């Protein structure tokens, strides 16, 4: 009764910001929240459950753990622009950055049984656009709602 009407279609575009602590325990809740927002803009299927959820979880984990060094005094700023066409997310940490150009390919046979090194690969594989700033402490991701390319799959 006192609840706002959430039945109608959402506005053409939503823009919002989160400031998250550098704590992996909030990743699951934040990704769950963001996924619901995307669902309201008709994102669904593996674009939502695989590409968005895994890509987003990776980016947040890297910002919290590598960028902010799990320093509880540092925050991760997430800026989201969401429409029916695409979601664009900018994730900024308070670290000194890194060189995203120099990341070994985890799918090479010699890297296959390494425990780490798949995060950035997955971000790049799952998202449609991935652009780090020069420092490497801010990344802008774009995921389009329709799978317009890549991942030649069965259908």
């Amino acid at each position, binding site marked *: 009764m006192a609840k706002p009407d959430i039945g109608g279609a959402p506005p053409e575009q939503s823009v919002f910001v989160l400031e998250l602590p550098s704590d*992996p*325990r909030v*990743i*699951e809740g934040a990704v769950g929240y963001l996924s619901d927002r995307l669902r309201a803009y008709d994102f669904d299927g*593996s674009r939502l*459950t*695989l590409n968005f*959820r*895994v890509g987003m*979880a*990776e980016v947040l*984990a890297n910002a919290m*753990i590598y960028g902010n060094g799990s320093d509880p005094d540092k925050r991760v700023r997430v800026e989201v622009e969401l429409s029916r066409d695409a979601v664009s997310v900018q994730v900024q940490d308070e670290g000194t950055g890194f060189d995203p150009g120099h990341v070994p390919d*985890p*799918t090479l046979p010699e890297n*296959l*049984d*390494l*425990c*780490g*090194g*798949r*995060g950035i*690969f*997955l971000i790049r*594989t*799952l998202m449609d656009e991935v652009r780090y700033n020069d420092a490497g402490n801010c990344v802008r991701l774009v995921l389009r709602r329709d799978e317009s390319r890549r*991942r030649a*799959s069965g259908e």
Partner: protein
Amino acid sequence: MSFHTSKNNGVVVVDVDGQLIVGNRQELKQKVLDELEGGERKFLIDFSNTGYIDSSGLGVLVSLSKKIREQGGELRLANLNEDLRTLFELTKLDTLFNIADTREAALTGF
């Protein structure tokens, strides 16, 4: 997220409920390593009730598989949904693991 462990004909079966991600993967790792320490050698992880897995979750699976093999054991995976299949294919980890469609198939001939 939570894990349930059960024993089935000498195979330790672990069900992963929820996400297997950086915030909780250590629990799974510890659970399996404890069983390995306790003498168990055959492990099956069942992903029927798993949502998504991130790179550090994949890393734990790779690491466990290695440690189990070093002790002469084997780790099998079962019940990956379409998303998880794709994830394993994208990372080529489908070539590293014995992945069965069903729990029964995985248990057969273990």
